[in-house]
């Protein structure tokens, strides 16, 4: 073997070990991965905003297929109740919702599956933020604020889940594959966690008066306190509810908008009485499969025919009858035959092409205000007023009633009635409740006021259930006590949990 051969053998041998194993370590250069995320304040802020992002989901792809399912909160809060019925183009439009309206809903329904999946997706982002933000080097106040926001949003999602389904899995950290199959946690523990999260949020979140105009829409101390008060109310814990709602009243942060008719206009967004509002805008260019920052509620609740909507959430006659004569809130909540629907024309049976005599007004937007580009239907601008000041006042009244202080209860109901009266043309309408209304009648008055003040805002069904009146009020819709207080757990989730998750009674 000569030198040349030896050299070649050596060369050949070296080529066999030439490449190091780092050769196979190829990291993505576009977009970060979990490895290099959460490094600085900007990352923490982005992660927090990701928590907000899921709040805007209304029409979602069911995981694993390309089917879109709308799953608005008002589907469950209004249509399932006696405030409104489904509407749409006919019985074949959203047939699953039709079944739920008559309490025949199936666990195979896409509606409840989408609602479940979106809620847990929101929770996953909050868990990620709560887990990783503490490790980021940044200003403590800002950090705490982000943590507070994540905690608030997580509590909000669990509030929605527990009121919809009862016992639900309680997930407080991102899951490892071995933990994917979870089982349900009793509702009482979920409520306890909600309260813990909201206490943390109350501690860290600034008051609304302390945030700048450009930050309107971010969670505030008021939002956390109001949600906590509601959480206590839903568990019938009236003392803490009373105290918390009083905190809000006493803080001077909020007051009732002078004219009720202004609340649901564009100018009335994030108004003086707005405590927690999910923001939407019409200029983000979203489309059907990819809902960006616009809302579908505008087009879904608008009349069909020449008005170009889908015609859902049709107010029922008994809801219209609930309003006292001269109550301007009826005109602000419901379109009646002969009304002008903004700049879109007059409401007649011919112009809508459907036999309904009422339509929801609170989420109506003019044609001239529609999205400046793209498909206007997924790009409505109306914010979702989740918690209004009037809601807090009425909870205070309800709490005081249950704790025996009927006088204060009356006063607070009258605050709300007074604003309504001032919004109308008849100074004698909606007289203040006097001392003669007491006991059960006072409670009825409170319930009545809630219905007309917060009508078609997604509260009714959940109110009826927590007040224990659902079986009686919704009897002719088919409500079965002990079963229909909650919705069925999606059967897909039961299967995927390996049977760890059990179905609700009666489904």
């Amino acid at each position: 073997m000569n030198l040349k051969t030896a050299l070649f053998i050596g060369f050949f041998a070296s080529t066999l070990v030439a490449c190091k194993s780092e050769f196979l370590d190829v990291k993505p250069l576009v977009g970060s991965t979990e490895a290099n995320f959460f490094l600085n304040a900007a990352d923490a802020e982005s992660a927090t905003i990701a928590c907000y992002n899921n709040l805007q989901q209304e029409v979602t792809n069911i995981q694993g297929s390309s089917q879109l399912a709308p799953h608005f909160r008002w589907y469950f809060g209004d249509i399932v109740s006696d405030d409104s019925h489904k509407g749409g183009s006919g019985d074949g439009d959203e047939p699953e919702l039709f079944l739920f309206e008559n309490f025949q809903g199936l666990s195979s329904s896409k509606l409840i599956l989408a609602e479940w999946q979106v809620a847990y997706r929101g929770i996953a982002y909050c868990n990620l933020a709560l887990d990783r933000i503490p490790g980021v080097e940044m200003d403590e106040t800002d950090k705490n604020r982000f943590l507070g926001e994540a905690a608030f949003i997580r509590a909000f999602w669990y509030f929605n889940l527990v009121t919809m389904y009862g016992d639900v899995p309680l997930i407080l950290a991102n899951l490892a594959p071995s933990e994917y199959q979870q089982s349900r946690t009793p509702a009482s523990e979920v409520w306890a966690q909600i309260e813990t999260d909201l206490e943390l949020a109350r501690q860290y979140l600034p008051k609304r008066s302390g945030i700048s105009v450009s930050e309107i829409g971010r969670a505030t101390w008021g939002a956390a306190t109001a949600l906590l008060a509601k959480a206590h109310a839903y568990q019938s814990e009236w003392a803490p509810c009373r105290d918390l709602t009083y905190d809000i009243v006493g803080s001077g942060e909020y007051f009732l908008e002078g004219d009720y008719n202004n609340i649901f206009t564009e100018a009335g967004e994030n108004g003086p009485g707005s405590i927690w509002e999910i923001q939407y805008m019409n200029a983000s260019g979203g489309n059907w499969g990819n809902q960006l920052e616009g809302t579908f509620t505008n087009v879904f609740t608008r009349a069909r025919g020449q008005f170009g909507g889908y015609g859902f959430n049709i107010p029922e006659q008994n809801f219209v009858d609930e309003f006292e004569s001269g109550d301007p809130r009826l005109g602000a909540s419901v379109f009646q035959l002969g009304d002008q629907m903004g700049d879109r024309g007059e409401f007649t049976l011919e112009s809508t092409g459907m036999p309904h005599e009422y339509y929801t007004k609170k989420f109506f937007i003019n044609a001239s205000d529609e999205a400046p580009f793209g498909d206007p239907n997924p790009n409505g601008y109306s914010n979702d007023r989740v918690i209004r000041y009037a809601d807090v006042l009425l909870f205070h009244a309800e709490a005081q009633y249950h704790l025996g202080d009927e006088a204060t209860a009356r006063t607070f109901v009258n605050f709300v009635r007074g604003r309504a009266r001032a919004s109308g043309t008849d100074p004698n309408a909606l007289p203040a409740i006097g001392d003669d209304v007491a006991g059960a009648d006072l409670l009825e008055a409170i319930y009545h006021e809630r219905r007309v003040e917060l009508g078609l805002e997604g509260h009714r069904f959940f109110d009826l259930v927590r007040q224990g009146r659902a079986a009686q009020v919704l009897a002719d819709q088919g409500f079965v006590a002990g079963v229909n207080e909650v919705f069925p757990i999606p059967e897909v989730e039961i299967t995927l949990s390996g049977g760890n998750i059990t179905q609700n009674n009666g489904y």
Partner: protein
Amino acid sequence: MKNLLLAFSFLATMTVTAFSQGKAVTGTVTAAEDGQALPGVTVVEKGTQNATFTDLDGQYTLTVAGEEATLIFSFIGYTPQSLAVGAKAEINASLSADVAGLEEVIVVGYGNQKRSKISGAVGTIDSKEITSMPVLRTEQALQGRAAGVQVTQNSGQPGSTQSIRIRGTGSLNNAEPLYVIDGIPSGGIDYLNPADIASISILKDAASAAIYGARGGNGVVLITTKSGSKNQKPQITYESYYGVQEPWKYMALLNAEEYAILMNESRSAAGLTPLAALANPSALETFDWQDEIFERAAMMNHSFSFTKGTESSSTAIGGSYFTQDGIVGGDKGNFERYTFRVNTRQDGGERFRLGQNVNFTHLNRSALAENNEFATPVGRALNMDPITQARRDDGSFAYSNFIDSDIANPANQIAINNDFWTTNRFVGSSFAEFDLLSNLTFRSTMSVDLSLGSQRIFNPTYDLGIGPNDPDRPAYEFRPVNSLILGENKWSNWQWENIVTYDKELSNGDELKVVAGYSSLKNRSTSFYGSRDSLATNDVQYAYLNNSLNAAEQAPSANGGISESAFIGQFMRVDYGLGDAISLAGTIRRDGSSRFGVNNRYGIFPSFSAAWNMTELPWVAEKDWIDFLKLRASWGQNGNADGIGNYDYTSLVYNGLNYTFGGDQVQVNGAGPINTSNPDLKWETVEQTNIGIDADLYKGKLNIVLDYFVKSTNDMLAVVPLPGVVGYLPSATNVASAKNTGVEFMVNHRNQVGAVEYAIGGNISFIRNEVTGLGEGGQPISTGSVFGIGDLVAYTEIGQPIAYFYGYETAGIFQTDEEAAANTALPEAQAGDVIFVDQNGDGVVDGEDKVMIGNPHPDFTYGFNFEANYKSFDFSLFLQGAHGNDLLNGVFRYDLNTTNLPVSALERWTGEGSTNVYPRISHSDPNQNNRISDRFVEDGSFMRIKNVQLGYTLPESIMQRLSIGKCRVYVAASNLFTFTNYSGLDPEIGSRGTLEIGIDRGFYPSARTFMAGVNVNF
């Protein structure tokens, strides 16, 4: 047979007697092995047409020109012999049997093997078969030629891709085989000119593909391009053909009168008033939209090659130009390709060799949208109403007054289409080979595969309204603002391979061959796109971003990114030949990839195979009709890494989880992961067992190959739904599995009858496909959305084939309202509606009652070819087909109620007893008659005469005068006839990914082509 021989002998002697001068030669021809006389042997005087045949005793007589003549003796299955006449009057010849087929060397992974010794299942196609059919893409040349290989086109548009499945679909993600060209795994073979290919080997079983490890799971297609040989005189060839394509079929649709009658009936059934325009059906003039969009289109090819070799080097150079217009859109569907290549080898001394392959290809493509049901010219032409004309009297494009929504004027769509792709592809490799010892060789190869692509899409403004602001103008027939998208893509593969080969014949006669090597590959792909709208002129010539009127104010839209991956492989194959009869082979390969998760970076892929050459066994050898008999078996594991994305192992953070804050409602950016990450991500493992028999019978006249295989894919990637509590969307995990089992049979027969040499061959494969696992819970996967049906039509679940058709079973039509009312499972039904079967008997027809209504996988596929040569004429016929596959006809947009329909719609139910097959026609459909059901599934079995060719080689005498070696002219037809019962435009519908197979959404059909061409060798 004997009469034929006599007749030819008579003719031959007639020829001889005509030339009364000359020298008479006589003799006997025998077989070398056994001395037996050979009848029917051709005896020809070299350089002339003067020929005769040996008689039954092997004797012949021929008068030749003179003593300088040479006689050539040739016969099928024997090596030809050439003998000079000289002064002799008797010339005897002894011919030896040509079992050359067995000594034929076949290219396998990293080496060659003799056909007699191969123990794996390898199919071969040689260059003659490739160029016998004028093809654009090399994959088309594989169609029907090799058992077990199914090639279907994904569209008939020029330049579109093909789907190739070797032994069934073995993956839910990527089932395409690996292409290796001249030893280099390639990113795609569209840059090759098929005329440059010398041979193709298809590695079908695990043992032959194992040396490609993690990339060989779907089989490997090895392509060897032509190269020069040593000491070869310069040879130049030139080939050219010109062809005219036309559509081979139009769908039978309603004419204007029928359309109007049905529309009126449909509207009144739904309680709608009839349309005034359709009040007088018989007065309406029919417009044929298929005639409007289909046209005759030309295609043309010119290619040349030059090869030469000296003592120590060889060179092959080739170039070609190919252009093809589309039968839809003409030059709007054009594909054009220029190729140039240089392939050289040099010897640097006794023990050192160098080689270089350089290929450059330039591709231009103008493309029309295809294969969807809402935005393609073909889909729109089939759905458009037959009353609206393409143009109004003033020449402007018209819109339909009857159909709204996305069925727009297809003629206008073609006219405004501007979607151009340009690709420059450079593929090159360079190797150095050194003989370390006499039987130890080392070879190092570097190669690069670089593709630079650019795309230009210009959408001009248009308005089909009558005058400006026409209120009846549908939304889709109007675009107020033009826009332009420009994009650049760069894609590159760099590879370095080092291989050592040891080849030794041992002292006891056994042969040992070892190949060991190391391979590394780095891939990188970058892209950049920019777009702007409101360009100053509406002319595609001026469509450049800076011509936008908004250049100053509006921010342009731009995006771009980069993606990379890397592979490392170490492999070794040992071939051991035990005596002459037994060949054993074992391969092991270890592969690592950047695509795999950290926990599973490397995988090991072993395989074993054995072949037993039974030819010398006593009971075989005594049967002289068996020339060669080999039994082989193999087992191995390969991987499939190509279905994994470059970064699927990790969870990418997505910067688009936005919200809005502020009084001004400003968008703010949020970021977070979308999918779960999967550090356990790894390759799919394909395990295959194969048993086969090769036999050569009757002195090479009959050749048979039979194989049986079982191919299981485990750790198949599937996106399996996760519990909602996880929060994130699932990423692909290795949880699924599938199985393909099959039998392949191939037979070839060659013979000579008098002056006619012919060969007949065929192959048939039976493959059964089944999904065996879909992860925990086994959740089925629904895919294949079809607009007209409004549902997903394909379903993948355990125990059934991948992506079968899933829907409702029908049981006739309700003939009376009483019958409909009695069926409580279908509460909305009335007389004339479809009866859907309540499979589970629960009293309700819902999603639980869906069953399998069709299977897109064929029961068997086959190919058949026939070739004959007679003197200077040659004829070939090739056909292929598939049988037992179903297709889903999703062409018509039933969701719109107003589109055109096939003539079968005339058979609709009109009263009791009128039909039990087609429902009543109505604009309202409360019973959902048009839901996914067996009404939309049709038998897609077909047989297609793919190629018929007749050629004539010009006489040598003329050629010699022009100093041309050989010149052949031919005429051919491609896709001449298609026999099928399918009602759509083409039964050969490929797939859109692996989970949507055989769904017709307005398929761009393949064309019937007539062409003429010439091959010249200088």
